[in-house]
């Protein structure tokens, strides 16, 4: 009983989340995995606030951002040969075995390139790390990912489970995490993305 009271108190305390921070533990190692040819990266820290939360709840109904997900977050901009290659965005998703942290590699068209688990205690992890499972996400934009989710029943579609060849808590969380990541990136880092896209247009001869 005391345990639950403590958990409820913890959830309701605003001070607990005051210093929310989400980023790569070892950015070099993780970015190397996601962008083997990268040369440099820079990080842009922005705050995910209540307005973002409202926009997310509008575009992804039934999948709101929790208060724990608010706060300061880092977007890594990956560069090589003076050109922006893409982005890395780390997001946490609560699962039954604690928080799962996934580093998402996103291209300039806001499509998923790949992903890596920064933290995942699930034994099912291996099912999501297979090339087949990865290919489900690779090249998918937000709209492409949304097609794999049934918003009426608020759960991934059967087609998604068939494609990733796994059905469970972790696979659900990974899909949700991917959609939220792309949307939040577009909302929160909109200016930076526009600037990068503009600079790319200008560089084209």
């Amino acid at each position, binding site marked *: 009983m005391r345990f639950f009271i403590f958990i409820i108190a913890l959830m309701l305390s605003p001070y607990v989340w005051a210093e929310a*921070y989400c980023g790569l533990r070892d950015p070099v190692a993780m970015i190397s995995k996601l962008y083997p040819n990268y040369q440099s990266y820079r990080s842009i820290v922005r705050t995910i606030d209540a307005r973002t939360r409202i926009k997310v709840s509008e575009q992804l109904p039934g999948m709101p951002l929790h208060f724990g997900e608010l706060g300061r977050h880092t977007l890594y901009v990956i560069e090589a040969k003076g050109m922006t290659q893409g982005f890395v965005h780390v997001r*946490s998703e609560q699962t039954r075995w604690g928080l799962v942290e996934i580093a998402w590699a996103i291209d300039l068209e806001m499509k998923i390139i790949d992903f890596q688990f920064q933290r995942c205690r699930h034994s099912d992890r291996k099912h999501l790390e297979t090339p087949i499972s990865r290919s489900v996400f690779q090249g998918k934009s937000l709209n492409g990912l949304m097609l794999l989710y049934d918003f009426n029943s608020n759960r991934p579609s059967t087609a998604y489970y068939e494609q990733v060849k796994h059905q469970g808590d972790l696979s659900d969380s990974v899909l949700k995490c991917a959609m939220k990541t792309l949307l939040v990136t577009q909302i929160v880092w909109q200016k930076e993305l526009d600037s990068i896209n503009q600079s790319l247009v200008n560089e084209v001869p």
Partner: protein
Amino acid sequence: MKIAVQSQMLVMSCFIISLLSFCVLGLQFYQSSQTQTELSQIEIEKGQINHLESMLGQWLTTVDLFFNNRQSYLVMGIERQGIQIKEKLKNLEFSQTHIAKPLTQLKNHMNSALPLVNQAAIVGPEETEEWLSLLKEIDSKTIRLIQEYESLKQQIKVLSDRKRDDFEAQKQQLVFSFITVTVFTVAILTLLGIWNSRRIIQPLTLLSSLSDNAAPSLSFDNAPLEIKTISQKLTSSFYNLAKEKRQAELANQKIEQQNLQLQDTIVRLEETRVQLVENEKLASIGQLAAGVAHEINNPIGYVMSNLETLEDYISDMKAFIEHANELKNKMPQLNVYSEQYDIDYILNDLPELLDSSHSGLKRVKTIVKDLRAFSHEVPNHIEEIVLKDLIEQTINLVRPSLPSTVSIHLNLNTMQTLHGSATKIAQVLINLMLNAADAITKQGTISISLFSENNVIKIFIEDDGCGMDAETQNNIFNPFFTTKPVGKGTGLGLHICLTIIKSHGGDISVSSEIDKGTCFTISLPILRNNDFYEDTLSSCQSSATKSIKARITGD
């Protein structure tokens, strides 16, 4: 063996079998209950382990939050949650016994992870390397912790499934054992019952059957001593009783049969009595007729004599009157008197009157003579009989009693004689003629024929009356057989006829057809040995009497 001992054996056998059955079923039920208890315990523990999963999830989330946000206030909560999880792990008694390894590992990882949290709480923000190292280590420990938990969960599931399978198997085995033991017990008890039945009840049943019929072949070899003793005594008693009963029943049957015979005899005696009375009447009438005939015979004698004298006188008177007629011319007065008294007519009519009187007297004389002949005045003796004359005499006697609608036609072609009793033969002829007349209901003819061939004289008495059926023809000569109403016929007439004809060495037969008529044929041999007739007559008479007597007494 005594009944008491056998009963005790039976009861003890039933008790032991029932006890064994109960023990077998009880043991299996106990095992099944134990398994069920263990299964319940495992299920409870499974629930606790599932709850542990949510506790671990929350604890890990708190740990992750702590390491992500570096909120040192969460450390106390993480520690308290960790203690509660460890308490929970301690309470998993069944798992500690049966799946100790993953549980112990889980505890160890928990114990090693908690200090890392406390250690991280005092790491300063600038010590990024140490922080990341601790973060990496806590992730590694918690991953192994989850692995151990999942192993624990898997093993408890396997254990639960195995126990459930065991329980289901034991349940099925229990049901099977119950059915088997029940069938076995019922079979054994049935066999014991049959054995008991054969030893006690069956002998008792057999004993009771002795009351219905004596059964000397009954075997009580295997029966108890009491039943053997009782059976020996009862067998003897029931045997005697049954024997006496059978004798009594036979005696009863005999008495009933004798009663029936007696009733029959009484009826026949009554009929015989009536017949005797009739015979007596006939004898009296015969004697009377004989007396009357004797008394009439004398006046007829002198009346006939007087008639002859009167004829002579009339002849003289007639001669005198013829002479007197010669004097009519001389004596006119005489002529007047002759006409006044119609003398001529008288003279003409007198011969006719005399003849008629003479003829009537002759007829009376014949009747008287015949009456005397048939009224037993003449003793039965063998004489030479002219059958043609005897038939005519008989017709003379019978004709007055025949109705006017019956005519008689004669065809008597032989003057052959035979030796015998004319009275008896006439009795036969009268009987047959009267029967023929009775058979003619309206108008008819009785034809009597007489022929002789090959030393046999045959008399056919035939009528065109109602006839007889085959059964009547077969029985018609049996004594007391009659088709006439009660009191009108005795049924002895034709039997006596047959006896008489047989006594003359002859035979009598009948042929008849319904609504066409009947023909009796009498065959008589032409023999001249007087001794034969007398012997056969007397012997046949006695045999006829015996036959009638036999019919009366029923012997």
